[in-house]
Structure formats: structure tokens, C-alpha cells
């Protein structure tokens, strides 16, 4: 009988000394769609189209970008807002242009069920938020992964609840980071809430169309149907907080539930505190 990884009799999984390359393509491929569905060509095109929005519309400003590693895996965690979330493209675009390394965004499976948009989202680096996807990206391939632990509860909240962080799921993001042995890097985002504020939710329409939520946004009132896609030019400020390293052995099947919940709560707290801090210093929604 063969033993897996003959040179390491004790460990079942061979220790990977270097990262797998998700963009490794056979020479005879006709496109550059990588093993996650991301296409660097599509990304490049999207970056070129989105850059004016990033620079001139949202006028994005980063603080502490140097805390994001230029090499190896890290799980980026941010607060989530706006009826159609404007924060994910801003963070992914910012990291790819400033740090020059790809950033994968984990999101609800709902995106995958959308024709055209779902495919586009996938080609631009979006993935369903499955723990296996996160683990392979972080541990085996040393990539940057962005996740919003609030899930749809973040963008679904109305304007009067802005900058009030929702529950951070069940702390799954902490468990994945522990298992993959990578740091969690919290990011506080100011501006997304005001770019497309939800005035009220219409649950009956959401139910009828099978949507996670159906918002009536201020943008729709101001710009009519165009408001469904047009963001207000809110000033974006992003602050990268200190990376959180977990002092636990990686690669375990399970971690202490209480430890996970504590760490998750701690990270949520730090983002919340940072948000209040940034909001205290903010003079104008539009000019920062």
C-alpha cells in the first residue's frame, strides 16, 4: 500500500513549501479564466472603466494600506453597506491598483444564480462564500480574500441604522483564518452607507422575486429608474486596522467555539470603534 507523501510519514497532508498558483494555465488554453473563474483581462478592463469612478466620483482615500501584506494569504474583513454594495468594488479596485496583487471577494451564493451578472461577478474575482474556497485561496495559494461577515444583513439595513454593525455571522471567518494560519485584517469603510442609502425595505417584492431584500433607495427618489445603478458621490475613506494574528495551531478540524466568538466579537468591536472615530472627524458626507 502506498503512503501519501512518502517523505512525510507522520503527516497525512503534505506540507506545502510554496503556494500553488491559481493562475497556472496550460499553454493550450484559449482564455485566461483561472481556476476560480477570475480573468485578469476582464479585471484589467474593469479597472480601466472603474478607475474614474474610484478617483473622481468616490475620491477614495486609504489609511494604513501598508498593513496589508504584499505576499502570502490574509483575510480582509470590512463593514458592508449600500443597497447595492459599493464597498466591495472600491476595496478590490484599491488593493489591486495600489498593491498590485489580486484580491478575491467572497459573497452570497445569490450572485451565482443571476444570469450575466453572476458570470461577470465571477470573472471579476467574485466567489461564493464557501469555507473550502476561502481555505484553498488563503492556505494553499496565499491570496488576499475579502469577506463581509455581516453578509446581506449589512446592505439590507436602512439609513437610520447606518454605521451600526450587524452580527458577524457565526464567526466563520475567524475559524477559516485560524485553520489557514493567516491573519485577519479589519478594514473600516466610511462613505458606502451614503452612496446608496436604503429608505425602506419592501419585503413582499423581495419575496415575489426571490431576492434577499428589496430596497427603496434615496437614489431612486432623486434619479428615478437610473437611481437603481447611480451612486451618490459620497466621499470614501478607508482605514486598515492592525492585523489580528491568532495564537492557535493551524490545520485543525475544529476550534473552540467560545474562542471563535470572542475573536469575532473583538474584531467587530474594533471596526465599530474605528468607524465612530472616523465619523467624529468627518465634516461632510460629500467632502470628507
Amino acid at each position, binding site marked *: 500500500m*502506498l503512503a*501519501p507523501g512518502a517523505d512525510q510519514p507522520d503527516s497525512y497532508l503534505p506540507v506545502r513549501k510554496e503556494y500553488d498558483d491559481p493562475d497556472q494555465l*496550460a499553454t493550450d*488554453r*484559449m*482564455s485566461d479564466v483561472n481556476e*476560480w473563474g477570475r480573468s485578469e483581462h476582464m479585471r484589467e478592463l474593469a479597472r480601466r472603466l472603474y478607475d474614474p469612478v474610484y478617483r473622481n466620483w468616490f475620491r477614495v482615500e486609504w489609511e494604513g494600506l501598508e498593513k496589508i501584506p504584499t505576499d502570502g494569504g490574509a483575510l480582509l474583513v470590512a463593514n458592508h453597506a449600500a443597497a447595492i454594495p459599493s464597498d466591495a468594488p472600491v476595496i478590490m479596485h484599491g488593493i489591486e491598483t495600489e498593491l498590485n496583487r489580486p484580491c478575491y471577494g467572497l459573497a452570497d451564493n445569490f450572485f451565482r444564480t443571476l*444570469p450575466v*451578472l453572476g458570470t461577470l461577478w465571477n470573472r471579476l474575482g467574485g466567489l461564493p462564500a464557501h469555507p*473550502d474556497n476561502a481555505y484553498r485561496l488563503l492556505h494553499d495559494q496565499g491570496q488576499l480574500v475579502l469577506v463581509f461577515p455581516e453578509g446581506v444583513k449589512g446592505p439590507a439595513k436602512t439609513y437610520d441604522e447606518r454605521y451600526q454593525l450587524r452580527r458577524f455571522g457565526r464567526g466563520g471567518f475567524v475559524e477559516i483564518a485560524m485553520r489557514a494560519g493567516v491573519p485577519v485584517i479589519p478594514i473600516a469603510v466610511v462613505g458606502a452607507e451614503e452612496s446608496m442609502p436604503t429608505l425602506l425595505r419592501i419585503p413582499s417584492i423581495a419575496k415575489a422575486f426571490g431576492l434577499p431584500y428589496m430596497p427603496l433607495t434615496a437614489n431612486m427618489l432623486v434619479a428615478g429608474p437610473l437611481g437603481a445603478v447611480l451612486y451618490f458621490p459620497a466621499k470614501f475613506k478607508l482605514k486598515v486596522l492592525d492585523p489580528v494574528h491568532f495564537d492557535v495551531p493551524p490545520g485543525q478540524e475544529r476550534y473552540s467555539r467560545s474562542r471563535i466568538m470572542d475573536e469575532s466579537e473583538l474584531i467587530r468591536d474594533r471596526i465599530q470603534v474605528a468607524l465612530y472615530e472616523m465619523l467624529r472627524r468627518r465634516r461632510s458626507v460629500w467632502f470628507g
Partner: protein
Amino acid sequence: MSSATTASRPARRVLVTGLGTFWGGRIAQALEADPNVEVIVGLDTTEPTVELERTEYVRVDANYSILSRIVHATQVDTIIHTFLVVDPTQMSRRSMHEINVIGTMNLFAAASAPASTVRNVIVKSATMVYGCAPEDPVWFREDTPRSRPARAPLERSLEAVEGYVRDFAEDNPHVNVALLRFSNVIGSQIQTPLTRLLNLPVVPSVFGFDPRFQFVHEDDVIRSIQFAFEHDLPGVFNVAGDGLIPWSEVAKQCGKRTFALPPVGTSLLTSPFRSIGLADVPEAYHGLLKYGRGVDNRRLKDFGFRYDYTSSQAVAAFIEAVRLRHTIGDSEPAYRYERDVEQFFRHSPAVVRDRP
């Protein structure tokens, strides 16, 4: 049996199910080349379609009712179970159930009989058991559970088969059981629902979706079964080429354009085509054309198996074979099994065997 490597291993007596199918025939051919394999017995309801030197063919009914007698009489130590239907377009639901579920049940009943000599079992399953849903991970590992319960008849029958395999492995710890799950097989010869789609003038797709597919070349399938046989691989293994290719790229590689079906009511729209026998997209493939499926092939690699083809190389091999056939037609004349002829070569005293 002269070389040093084969002398160290005991001679093997192998039973192959589904000898008349593409896989059974090719496996038997590969085993015949192995001097370490002493006896090959092949079972099927239909006659072999490939030329075989020394494999003994036994005609059985679809659910193997006489199997325990055969296992007992031939004293086989290894069963290679290839007779699982994974292409639901080729037969009724009823006969698929007979072959997959009842056949496997009887096979394991025979293999676990008190006096059974069986010590190795290799089962050829399919990655279709993972299902296909939007909640799926991009890569299924061998222990990743399905996201949604199986609904398609094919997936349910494969699930039942794997249940029997698990039970058998649990009840018979002295038997080494290898369960190989194959991804979408493609290559120069095999016909599957996917190759039939790719052979249409335009390749059907679902509007707005460009799922990513994984393929495994038919030669790698045979090699992996041989690998499992030679190394007595234990447990469950995904067998699939490296990489996932968008369906649109697969079509482009084949020089075809895609034809988008509406994302809702796909089965309603394809049913008229099915009834005139044009394009049959079975239920188990509807989800696949929206979400695709990837499986993690690293476990088998960790055991030392090397793939000859990546997913895209497998597609390339397929389309090259198609082009060749279009030009010169079927190159090899179809083989027909003649019972008397085969019996003569195997058993007549007039045939000189064991030539130096």
C-alpha cells in the same frame, strides 16, 4: 512472471463487471498486458466490443443473480466494478436502477459471502454524486457533502451505489475498497451526453451563465484504475484533470458557437429536441450548464498518480479525434464477438500457448 517486480507480488485473479461496455473492455485489455494478472473474468449482459486475448467472457443478466456462484467458482481476489451507468440518456430509469443499484447490491453480496476470496474492490463512480447547486464550493474534496439532496434519478442511483460501497467497506475491513469518482470523461473514443452536445452544429448553453467544466481524458481513467489496482489504493478518490474551463471556451476550442437557452424552463424547451432525438440534455446536466463543477484531484496525486492530460488537453484530444473521424471515417473496423472463435483460441488443445 519472470521480472523481479512481478515476482514479489502474488498473481492476481480479477473479475471485471461490464465487460461489454467501453470501460470494462478497455480495463480488461489493460489487465491482459499485465503478466501479474493470472485470470481475468468479464461479466456483462452484452458481448464484448473490443478484441480480447485471454479474458473469459460470461454472459449474465443485468442484476448479476448468479454472481456468487461465479465468485466462488473462480476464486477471484479482485473485483473491478465498472458496470455503472452514468449516462442516463442511454436507457430507461428502470433498467438504470437494475444495473446500478441492484447489480451493485448483488455484487457486494457475493463478495462478502462467508467463503469469499475477494480482497480488493475497485468501483468506478462519478463526480455527479456531488450534485450541482449554487451553494457548492468551487472544488469538491472527497469528503465534501452535497449541498442539496439528490433529485435526478441518476444521482440518486449513484448515491445508493456509494452507500453499498461504504457499508461493504465497513463490514469487511479485510477488503481493500477503492472508490474512484470520475469527472466528465472525454477523449478520442468515448461518447457521453457532453460529447454529444459538443458534436451538435451549435453547442447549447444557458443564457447568462458560463459555467466551468472539468474533464478527464479516457486514458487517464484507465490509468487511474490500473494505478488503484496495482497499489491497492484505499478509500475515495476524485479523478479529474487539472483546471476548470468555461463552457464557452470548450465550445470555442471545438470550433463551435454556443446557442443560449433561456435560464428558466430549460427542460421545457429541450424536451421537443429530445423527443425527436436531436439533443438530449439529461436532468443531471441542467445544473451543470449553469454552475459547473470542480473536484479537488490532489488526493490521488498525493498518492503518486500523474495525469497525462489537463482538462483542456483532454478537450483538445477529443476535438482532434472528431476532426480525424470527419475526414477518414471510423478508422478501425468494428469488432464482433464470435463465441466459437473465442472459445477455440482460449481452450482448444490445437492452439499453442506459452510460446517462449
